[in-house]
């Protein structure tokens, strides 16, 4: 199967990463005030997840790492060349791996689902697919 044009992949990645920055920023802001994100569909899932011991990594809210990751992915999407392809792939792979881990925790350890975390996991999964395709199809190609 032929991969989409690199410009198309970069456009998709730009859109997804921008959305991701928005979602991660909302979670970080909601948590910084001592509260938690509001689940749009109702329920206490977001509060339970935000209040769990897994919401922080090395004392830092994981949403902050999310913002950093999405900003790097946005930059990689906007830039050309192998450096951007490689960094985009590595960051998206790590983000995807961490999203899988967090989703597993939500389902089997915390026993609560936060819609904002699910939204972020979906965005990160799509970004991984986009960046992996870009890397595999266009690594080494001229700008």
């Amino acid at each position, binding site marked *: 199967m032929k991969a989409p044009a690199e410009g198309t992949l970069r456009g998709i990645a730009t859109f997804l990463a921008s959305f991701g920055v928005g979602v991660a920023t909302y979670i970080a802001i909601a948590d910084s005030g001592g509260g938690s994100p509001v689940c749009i569909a109702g329920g206490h899932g977001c*509060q*339970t997840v935000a209040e769990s*011991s897994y919401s922080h990594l*090395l004392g830092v809210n994981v949403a902050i790492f999310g913002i950093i990751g999405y900003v790097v992915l946005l930059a990689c999407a906007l830039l050309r060349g192998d450096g951007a392809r490689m960094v985009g*792939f590595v960051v998206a*792979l790590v983000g995807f791996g961490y999203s899988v881990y967090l989703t597993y925790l939500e389902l089997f350890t915390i*026993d609560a689902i936060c819609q904002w975390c699910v939204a972020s996991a979906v965005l990160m999964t799509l970004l991984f697919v986009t960046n992996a395709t870009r890397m595999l199809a266009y690594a080494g190609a001229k700008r």
Partner: protein
Amino acid sequence: MSGRRDREARREERLREDEQAGTAERRQRLIKLGSAAGFLALAVLAVVLVVSQSQKGGDASNIVDTQAVNQLLDGIPQNGMTLGKPSAKVTLLEFGDLQCPVCKGYSEEVLPGVIEGQVQNGEAKIDFRNFTIIGPESTPAGAAAIAAGEQGRGWNFVELFYRNQGAEDSGYVTDAFLTAIAKGAGVPNVASWNADRKSKRVLSEVAATTAEAEQLGFSGTPSFAIKGPGTSGTETIGTPGSVGDLESAISGAE
């Protein structure tokens, strides 16, 4: 003329082929490098996660999972250290040490299945009893749980303590930590709880249940005993390894 054109065409083709081969080689190298970097980054992340999780707990200023505990125990009657409807035919006796990491794991992984099932539907009740085997900090922790139980929040205290447990006898079971757990567990009268947990009556109860566990032949935590219409008095069942094993033991005692 024609020979020279042919030679030039062949030369251009050779250059094109060399360039394509170079690009393909560079592409392969980049993909290998990217994959190696990606998996190395994932390995680093895994190490950070393991280290981060092992350092958690025992922090009075950061009590976590109150909402999860409230959700688990919501609507289930509590009487002293007993969780479940008083009319439940089967009583499961859990002998645990609040400092014990295995008890913490059991409380998070196995017990919720039974609490949400046979305890919630009135088949069984669970009676938590202190079996203080880890060290000196186990006794004040256990006494604080009993004092919380006297105000109807014993199981909230136990579950919340486990979820915020620190390293064994590391000095984290301070007044501040216990008070933070009590507040998080929803103990209504913290001043009264504070006096009760230091009383001889409560401290002797911790010693009595520890002696009871030893009499039953237990040497580790968590250990379980069960009594119901289907048992001859109190029968020891050790440490059932899964939710299914615990459910079968309860069904067998009905």
